[in-house]
C-alpha cells in the first residue's frame, strides 16, 4: 500500500517513491529524481504530479514548481511517445549535427519541441549529451544513437515506428 491514498502513479512507482524518500538524510533530496521518474511514467509533469509529489515530500507546490522550471529535461506538456533529442553542440556541429537536425525536422515534419500528429515522435534540439567522440549523436528517450547519418536516422525512426527500438527507462 502506498503511503498516499489514491496515488496517481502505478503501484510499482508509488512503492518506489515510498522507499526513495527514506534513503536520504533529508527527504527533499528525492525531489529531482521523483519528478523525472514521474515524467517517465505519466509522459510529462502534470499538475497532478506536482500536487502528489509536493504532498509526498511535505513541500509547497510552489517549491516543486520552482525546481521543475529549472531542469531542462522536465516538461509540463506531453511529448511524443519517442522524444528525439538531437545534439548540435560544438563536437556534434562540427560533424554534421545541424544537418541531422534539419533532416529530422524534414523527415518528421515538425520543429523544435513539436509533436507529430500521431503522437509518435517529438523533436528537440539539445545541448551536449556527452557523446562527443561518437558525434553526431542524438537520444531517443534515454537511448543514445551515435555516428549518425541521415540514412541512419531514417532507419532509427523506422525501428521505433515498428515498436522495435530500445526504450530504456
Amino acid at each position, binding site marked *: 500500500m502506498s503511503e498516499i491514498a489514491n496515488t496517481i502513479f502505478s503501484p510499482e512507482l508509488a512503492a518506489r517513491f515510498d522507499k526513495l524518500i527514506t534513503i536520504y538524510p533529508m527527504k527533499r533530496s528525492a525531489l529531482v*529524481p521523483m519528478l*523525472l521518474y514521474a515524467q517517465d511514467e505519466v509522459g510529462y509533469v502534470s499538475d497532478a504530479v506536482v500536487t502528489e509529489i509536493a504532498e509526498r515530500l511535505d513541500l509547497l507546490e510552489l517549491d516543486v514548481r520552482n525546481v521543475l522550471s529549472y531542469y531542462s*529535461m522536465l516538461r509540463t506538456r506531453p511529448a511524443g511517445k519517442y522524444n528525439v533529442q538531437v545534439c548540435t553542440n*560544438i*563536437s556534434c556541429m562540427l560533424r554534421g549535427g545541424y544537418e541531422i537536425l534539419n533532416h529530422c525536422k524534414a523527415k518528421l515534419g515538425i520543429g523544435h519541441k513539436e509533436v507529430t500528429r500521431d503522437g509518435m515522435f517529438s523533436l528537440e534540439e539539445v*545541448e551536449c*549529451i*556527452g557523446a562527443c567522440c561518437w*558525434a553526431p549523436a542524438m537520444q531517443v528517450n*534515454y537511448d543514445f544513437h551515435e555516428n549518425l547519418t541521415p540514412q541512419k536516422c531514417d532507419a532509427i525512426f523506422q525501428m521505433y515506428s515498428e515498436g522495435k527500438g530500445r526504450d530504456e527507462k
Partner: protein
Amino acid sequence: MPTLVSHPDEVRVLSRRFGQGAANIDKYIELDGYKAVQQAIAQGPEWIINTMKASGLRGRGGAGFPTGMKWSFVPKQSEKPKYVLVNGDESEPGTCKDHVIFLEDPHAVIEGTMIAGLAIGSKLGFIYLRGEYRYLLKIVEKAVADAYAKGFLGKNIFGSGVDFDVITQTGAGAYEVGEESALMESLEGKRGVPRIKPPFPAVVGLYGGPTVINNAETIASAPHILLMGGEAFAKLGSERNGGTRLFGISGHVERPGVYELPMGYNLKKAIYDVGGGIKDGRKLKAVVPGGASCPVLTADEIDVGLDFDQMGKAGTMLGSGGIVVLDETVSIVEFALRTIAFYQHESCGWCIPCREGTDWIKKTLTRVYNGGGNKKDVANVQYLAENMLGRTFCPLGDAAAMPTIAFVKKFRQEFEDYIAGQKAGTPIITLDQLVGAGH
C-alpha cells in the same frame, strides 16, 4: 554504444579494464577489483591521503586542484556527518570520458568513493549522474546492488568495523549542476544555483556537513593509485601533474575517441598521431583543448604539453580533457556564436554579469553572424566578456567569457572581415535555428 579505441601511445591505468566486461562484479574482482579498498582499510586514512598527495593527481573535472590536498582539508572532527560526492554530471561540451568510465568500469567509481570515505571519515557517498545518462545510471545502480550483495557496501565493510553506504542520484538536465555547490543544491532537491564561497565544501558542504566532491574520473583513479603506489602513478605524468588521464578527441579528426594518455603528452601528437590527423586531409585551423570553456588555440599554438601548468602557460586550460579539433572550413564567427549560445542557455541566472553578459554577447554575435554587424561589435564583445570575468559566484561566467575573449582576440581579423562582408568558412547554422527554436 560508444566505440572503444586504442593507440600504441596510450598508457592504460584508468582504462585497463575497459572492454573486458568489468561492469560485472566478478570480472572486476578478477581484475584486482576491491583490493585497493582493503589496503586502504589496513593502512588507514593518513596513508590514503599521503598516497594521493604523492600521486600528484589533480582534479579531472577541469579545475586541476590536487586531490590529496582536497581530502586533507576535511576536518577530522565534525559534529555533522561527512559526505563523499561524486560528480558525474558530465556536461562540458567536448567531454564524454565519464560516460566511458560508468559504462566500462562502474565499480572503480564505487571503490574510489569508498576510499575517499575512508580517507575523510565519511559513512555515506553519493554518485550523481546527469539525467541524460539513464542507461549508465542503471549500470551504476546494478554495480552498487552487486557490491551490497557481496557485503562490500553496508555494515562493517571488509571487517573494518566501518560502515559505508552509497546512494546513486540522477539529475534532470542542467550544465550548471556540474559546478560543485550547484550540484549540492540539486542533491538537496533545489534549483541548481551556486553557493558563495567560502565556506568551501570541505567545511560546509552537502546538508551543511563537510564534503569531499570529486569528478568521477578523479574518484575512479584512486583505487589504481593505491594499488600501484603514489610515486609510481606520479612518474607516469609530468612535473606536478601526476599520472594519466582520459582525453576525448572529437571534431575534425580521423579517429575520434577517448584515449588514456600520460599527463604532459604533446597536444600536436594527440591530434595528428593518436587522433589520426585532420579529417579528409584538410588543414587544421584551431583547437579547443579542454572542453568548450577553454580558450581556443590556433594551429600554430598546439606544440604544447597536455598538463595543467603547460596549458596555463600557453594561455589556455587543460580543463576536462575534451580536445575539440576545428579544420580550415570552420567559421570562427559561427563557432563563437554557437559556444556563447550554449552558455547563455545554461546560465542559471543567479549572477547578473553572467546572465546579462552571455545574453548580450549572444545578441551581438547573432547580429554579426546575420550580416548586420558593425565595427564596434568586436570590441564590444570583448568588453562584455572581460567584465564578466571573476564577477560571478561560480565559474560559469568565466567559462563563457574566456573562450569568447580568445575567439575575438586571436581571430579578430576574421571577425572584421566577416563584418566587412567577407565570410570565411562554411556556414552551418541558419539564424532562425540559433535564435529561434533551440535557444
